[in-house]
């Protein structure tokens, strides 16, 4: 099926989200739609799926103009969509979700009161999943499935409806590296079966890995087309509209004395397991320590324990000699700790508050934002204007609810708040998760600037690229322990092995012989060789579902 969009324009009030966009998707190709957050990619796809009605322009399927009044028309025209926030009913089974809206009914009273044909629903799921190599249990409940499988359900749902063009809206944002590999395999299978895929993303590496053709969108307009032969640098410049530094500019640090020390820290997760298991490390002033590891190996709990959000079972956390354990978040913040949480929408922002209010969430009760009896709204407004200009937060209206901003700009609000007061330590979890290239560059620069002012910085990140770009020292966490502390020029392969829990057996023996805390900042395992050691621990811990959107 050949799909063509001609001069699609979509306006929301005065905002032109899509400005005369042309796009052709040939049969059997993977067409990447590349653009920053808020560039208008999702709007365009919602137009294509019939969720929005374009103000101008037309959609052609195999040369024939189609008027898509709603998703039903789009589905009938052979268009399927996997939304960024999955459109799955969490309490329904896989089969129920797949057939919803397109149910086969037997006997009963016909029409709406027709009896659901569950057997056929299961069979359809099985057939499609076998044909395209997407194994699924039709009777599993969606909420019990990991995110990767939920996405698979969405794909099967579109295929059961005989979609010829499949739109994948930011499909990799929620996946682990392994799941992304699997998704790419599936995409290749579908391409070979003659389906076309529109792949929406802002991640350059993924585009170059899989795309047949690339259309770049910036501020609602097509700014160019590209092929997978282009370099990341060229694509990034095209996407952002200016030259972007993909490599963080970072001179050699001038580390001082140990400023932030964690020793023998043990933290339990909500099930009583040791999420953080007796770890020790130290960060010097003017040094960035990156904590690498596959998601779910205790990094989140470590970061939360540093802030004082969850209780510490044993061990100590000291900043400039002051004990932070037991004080709770307020005292930790007052001690000069800036904290960027990993999940900004849950822990970083109050979505319904305005940008201006969010920018003083931690300072609302101190001068100059609080008077004797009430908030000083003028001061809060001035602060907001200054931060918005400094951190290039868009749109620039301080009175918009924070929840209406794009992900990248929400993150900038959090970073702006946390970095705009005098700090003695910066802790940032996943500082650039779901953030586009432009904002990423900016946030990285600010983090390096903090270091250059002599502050200790702890970055928790599951993105190896980010770790390698920022770190002065890398600590790899695996199942609650630090399995190695390595310098930033260590090879990716070596760090990858550590992330899978594979250490040199000799080093492992040495560690277990050493007293507790033997893995402290660079004592025991500064250089870990890729080992022939046990590989039984290679499988990462199971990832839990991260919510099903909406």
């Amino acid at each position, binding site marked *: 099926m050949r799909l063509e969009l001609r001069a699609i324009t979509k306006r929301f009030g005065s905002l032109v989200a899509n400005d005369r966009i042309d796009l052709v998707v040939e049969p059997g190709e993977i067409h990447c739609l590349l653009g920053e957050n808020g560039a208008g990619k999702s709007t365009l796809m919602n137009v294509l*799926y019939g*969720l929005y009605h374009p103000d101008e322009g037309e959609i052609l399927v195999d040369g024939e103009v189609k008027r898509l009044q*709603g*998703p*039903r028309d789009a*589905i009938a025209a052979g268009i399927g*969509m996997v*939304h960024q926030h*999955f*459109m*799955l*009913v*969490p*309490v*329904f089974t896989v089969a*129920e*979700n797949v057939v*919803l*809206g*397109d*149910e086969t*009914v037997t006997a*009963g009273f016909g029409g*709406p*009161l*027709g*009896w*659901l044909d569950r057997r056929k629903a299961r069979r359809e799921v099985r057939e499609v999943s076998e044909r395209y190599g997407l194994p699924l249990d039709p009777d599993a409940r969606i909420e019990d499935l990991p995110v990767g499988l939920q996405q698979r359900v969405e794909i099967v*749902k579109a295929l059961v409806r005989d979609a010829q063009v499949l739109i994948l809206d930011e499909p990799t944002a929620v996946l682990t590296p392994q799941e992304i590999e699997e998704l790419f395999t599936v995409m290749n299978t579908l391409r070979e079966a003659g389906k076309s895929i529109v792949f929406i993303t802002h991640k350059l590496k993924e585009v170059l890995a899989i795309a047949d053709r690339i259309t770049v969108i910036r501020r609602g307009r097509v700014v160019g087309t590209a092929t997978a032969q282009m370099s990341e640098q060229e694509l990034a410049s095209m996407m952002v509209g200016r030259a972007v530094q993909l490599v963080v500019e970072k001179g050699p640090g001038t580390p001082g004395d140990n400023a932030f020390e964690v020793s023998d820290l043990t933290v*339990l997760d909500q099930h*009583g397991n040791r999420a953080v298991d007796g770890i020790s490390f130290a960060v010097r002033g003017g040094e960035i320590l990156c904590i690498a590891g596959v998601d779910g190996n205790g990094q989140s709990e470590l970061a939360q324990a540093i802030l004082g959000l*969850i*209780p510490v*079972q044993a061990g100590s956390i000291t900043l400039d000699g002051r004990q932070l354990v037991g004080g709770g978040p307020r005292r930790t913040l007052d001690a000069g700790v800036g904290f960027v949480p990993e999940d900004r929408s849950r822990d970083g922002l109050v979505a319904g508050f305005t940008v201006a209010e969010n920018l003083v969430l931690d300072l609302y009760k101190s001068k100059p934002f609080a008077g004797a009896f009430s908030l000083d709204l003028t001061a809060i407004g001035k602060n907001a204007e200054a931060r918005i200009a400094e951190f290039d937060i868009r749109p620039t209206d301080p009175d918009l609810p924070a929840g209406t901003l794009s992900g990248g700009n929400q993150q900038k609000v959090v970073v702006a708040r946390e970095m705009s007061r005098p700090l003695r330590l910066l802790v940032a979890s996943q500082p650039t998760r779901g953030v586009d290239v432009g904002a990423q560059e900016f946030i990285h620069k600010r983090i390096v600037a903090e270091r250059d002012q002599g502050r200790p910085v702890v970055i928790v990140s599951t993105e190896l690229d980010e770790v390698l770009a920022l770190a002065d020292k890398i600590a790899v966490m695996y199942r609650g322990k630090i399995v190695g502390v390595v310098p930033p020029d260590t090879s990716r392969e070596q760090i990858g092995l550590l992330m899978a829990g594979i250490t040199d057996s000799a080093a492992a023996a040495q560690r277990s012989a050493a007293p507790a805390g033997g893995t402290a900042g660079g004592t025991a395992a500064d250089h870990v060789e890729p080992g022939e050691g046990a590989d039984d621990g290679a499988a990462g811990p199971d990832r839990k579902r991260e919510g*099903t959107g*909406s």
Partner: protein
Amino acid sequence: MTATAAELTAPAARGLDRARLIPGLAQAAVGAYALWAFGLGARTASGAKAAVGMALNPNAPGALGMQTFPAAPVAIALSLVCVVCGVARAFAPLGPAARRGLTVGYVVSFVLAFLVWASAGTSTLGGVSLPGVLNNTLIVSVPLILGALCGIICERSGVVNVAIEGQFLFGAFSSAMAATMSGSVWIGLVVGALSGALLGSLLAVLANRYHIEQVVLGVVLNLFALGLTNFLYDKLLSPKAAEFNQPPVFQAIRIPGLADIPVIGPVLFDQNILFYLTFLIIAVLQVGLFRTRWGLRTRAVGEHPRAADTVGIKVLGTRYRNVVMAGLISGLGGVWLTIGQVGSFTTNMSAGKGFIALAALIVGRWSPVGALGAALLFGFAGGLNNALAPLGTPLPGQVLSMAPYLATVFVVASLGGIVRAPAAENQPYVKD
């Protein structure tokens, strides 16, 4: 958030789950109390006989006579069953189904022990009439069931309906009036159901189109219904009762054969058409919600409306249709109050039943059969109270009427599992 000391030493204590231990032991303790109070207390002492009437109308020809048996041993045995159930629940490694069974067994034994105790030495007064208790229970339950079913349909599609009380009043008022004026109970029934749907459509429009907070909206609609029916009662029904408020009532339809079953026959199979209709609606809805296309779509709209929208289901259309249709059912609940039972309308005659129906649907976990169970439990309050009133038990009637609600809390807590409302409840659907 804060881990307790017990949780920190969890590995050692894993075998005994506190979540099972505490309710189990509490049950056992209450069972032991029952043993002391019901089995060994003064009322059952000295060989008093428990007396249970077995017929709804003892004077009818061929009716089963009153049964008597020694109260103390039976009460002791039943109390011991309670204790055993509680202990087993606390310590035995049982699956959820087995634990649920134990809880049900516990509640039944406890209630029976109580009845034996209450009826001890009352044979001269006719004893506790078993069919009487059952009959009262069912009659009180019918409007609760209908109201809860209405709420289930609404909430399953994502609209909270707190206006069930108002729909009862509308249904009761208009059916009494229509039946009086036309002289036909059937016209009363249709008009009553329609007037419930009328209030329902008001709710649907204000909630779906104008996005008014649905709980507040429901409360306002209740006050509106109360005010309007009070006003019309004062101006119309009360002064001109003969013209407007002396309706015929539905007569019982005796189902031959089944109605002759001892004890339960006359209770279940000698009732009016509304009674049978109620149970028919339960069955249809139970199957409809979980086995049909309508049910799947309704639940999808109540859980994740956007997902439903993206597969071409009309979210608002589904909500309008369901809320109006549900209004018909709660309108029937109102019909039951007047021409299904007493006949004429009196002010505020729903007297909070709409809210109890709301509780029944939550206790019944948004399922028609669950709501039936919960409504019967609540209905048991009235039934028991009426049956025991003439027997002179030491317990005041108010305490008795409290008991089922206490039992509800107890049962819900110990049945376990997560009670979860439809996810999109009370959220207006706005396309962006």
